[in-house]
């Protein structure tokens, strides 16, 4: 079903150990342009580690990762090239607390992409508008709610004009009433055709946006399926158990 030529992220036989602990076991994974893949699974199953490998925030011992036809390696220039393609939204937002929202958004475009201040600010304001938060531009991250901070973090990622966006449990650190405002922004992005990999526990959201759901457990991808089949009649016993637990809560 998947066309190998179109794959923007290709992961082959990826293995990673923390000391003796085998975190990622022979991961094979392919993501096409404009595809939205949701990765779920119990905590400690290696989902976050997997997407953090893609922009080399984590190293790995065996296997290969290819992003937009660039083969990731330890080489500094290669890592930079790959990071230019992908950008990441973190669980803890990781905004820069000493800079205003606008400065958070313009810092990388100015210092990495050598945009002029005016260009960078225009882009930043455009994306702040997109995440419905333009009135907060001159505040500091500490003055915003969690949901607002996460939307700013999404806007900051968008300012780098990435090909792929990685979301690492974007709503797990939020109060329940703020989750939907962040998910809505991600859904809008998805509808506009952004390629994204999302690690999440929000199953309703997963069902809405995913083209494909990966279920991970114990460092392996146990099941990879379209959302319809995954949620209605999962093939694997462990996926069944996981879904049962999640839905019960």
């Amino acid at each position, binding site marked *: 079903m998947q066309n190998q030529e179109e794959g923007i992220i290709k992961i082959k036989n990826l293995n990673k150990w923390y000391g003796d602990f085998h975190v990622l076991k022979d991961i094979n994974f392919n993501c096409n342009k404009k595809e939205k893949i949701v990765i779920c699974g119990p905590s400690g199953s290696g989902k976050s580690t997997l997407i953090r490998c893609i*922009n080399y*925030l984590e190293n790995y011992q065996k296997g290969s990762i290819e992003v937009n036809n660039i083969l990731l390696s330890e080489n500094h220039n290669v890592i*930079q090239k790959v*990071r*230019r393609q*992908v*950008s*990441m939204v*973190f669980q*803890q937002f*990781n*905004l*820069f*607390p*000493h800079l205003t929202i606008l400065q958070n958004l313009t*810092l*990388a475009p100015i*210092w*990495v992409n050598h945009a002029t201040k005016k260009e960078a600010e225009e882009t930043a304001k455009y994306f702040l508008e997109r995440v419905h938060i333009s009135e907060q531009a001159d505040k*500091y*991250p*500490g*003055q915003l709610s969690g949901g607002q901070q996460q939307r700013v973090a999404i806007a*900051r990622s968008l300012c*780098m004009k990435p090909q792929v966006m990685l979301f690492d449990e974007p709503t797990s650190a939020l109060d329940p009433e703020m989750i939907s405002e962040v998910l809505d922004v991600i859904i809008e992005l998805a509808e506009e055709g952004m390629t994204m990999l999302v690690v999440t526990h929000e199953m309703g959201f997963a069902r809405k946006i995913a083209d494909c759901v990966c279920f991970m457990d114990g460092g392996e991808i146990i099941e990879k399926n379209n959302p319809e089949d995954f949620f209605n009649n999962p093939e694997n016993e462990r996926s069944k158990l996981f879904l049962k637990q999640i839905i019960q809560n």
Partner: protein
Amino acid sequence: MKLSEINHKYQNLQYRKGVVGWIFKNLLSSPLNILLTFFSIYLLYLIIPATINWAILDAVWQGKSNKDCDFSGGACWFFIDARFNTIIYGFYPQEYLWRPNLVFAILAISILAVTTNILSAKLKIRFGVTALITLPFIIFIILKGSIFGIEILHPIVDTGKWGGLILTLILSLGGIMLCFPLGIMLALGRRCDSMPIVKYFCIAFIEFWRGVPLITILFMAAIMLPLLLPEGTQFDKLGRALIGIVLFEAAYIAEVIRGGLQAIPRGQYEAADSLNLTYWKKTGLIIMPQTLKLVIPGIVNNFIALLKDTSLVSIIGMWDLLNSAIGSTRDPKWIGFIIEAYVFAGIIYWIMCFGTSKYSQHLEKKLNTTN
């Protein structure tokens, strides 16, 4: 009345409003507190009148020579007036005092410009950076009159003649300014796991300079270093002392900054990495600004300690503020006024340290962006 009733009435006094209530609540709430209160009052009774008598009532404010002070039993403040120039300027030639005065004025204007809101934030940063780079040279040229052997002002005043408050300021401000970049590099180097040679060099440097007393370093700089250098090499004593102070202080500042670096969450590094910032941009734009803000109290603490530690240069024969003040009393005309000398020097140190401390508190408040 029963004892319990008296006790009850006494307790009620504590709930009264106003001065009475306050006194019974805070000073007289228990037998031990009553005892401590009266003991403290007795101590204050011993200290305060005696101090006021010595410093103000019995003090001699005007006079011509030490003879005017002999029988008063109070402080002899005109001794300070008579030796003021020595305490502030050391042995700087009397007829060229406009040069150190100009330096004081430049320093005062710079400090005002950077610490108050006269300039806009942007201008302030520009001015601050320019001042940091150029002021050491400007001050050196004004005081010495020459640089790199080229005479600019006449006459050239050798650094050996610099002294008093101006020397203390040069050693402490120069020391803290120069030790800063070095301290930052050492702190970063010590955390650099990917380059073990750099890392272990930084550890060795820090542990060596931190483990040696400042007096030893000054002594080595003043006396041993000239013996080790090739014959005929002339190296200024003030310069040698300053280098010693800078290396010593850098080791301390490095550890203060490293403490701050450890408090920065890993997420900040990861966010900077995923935005593709290089190591130096990440450090300069994201990590250091947050670190330096965190370690303001530690840095100010070190600066205040250094300001006072510069008085140790007296053991290598330099005439800083404290040494000049004490030295003034060795003049046969002024023997016996050492208490006044210590008190006066102490007041100057205290004003400088207290001002620094207040400013750092203000800075911490201003830079706080968390709420």
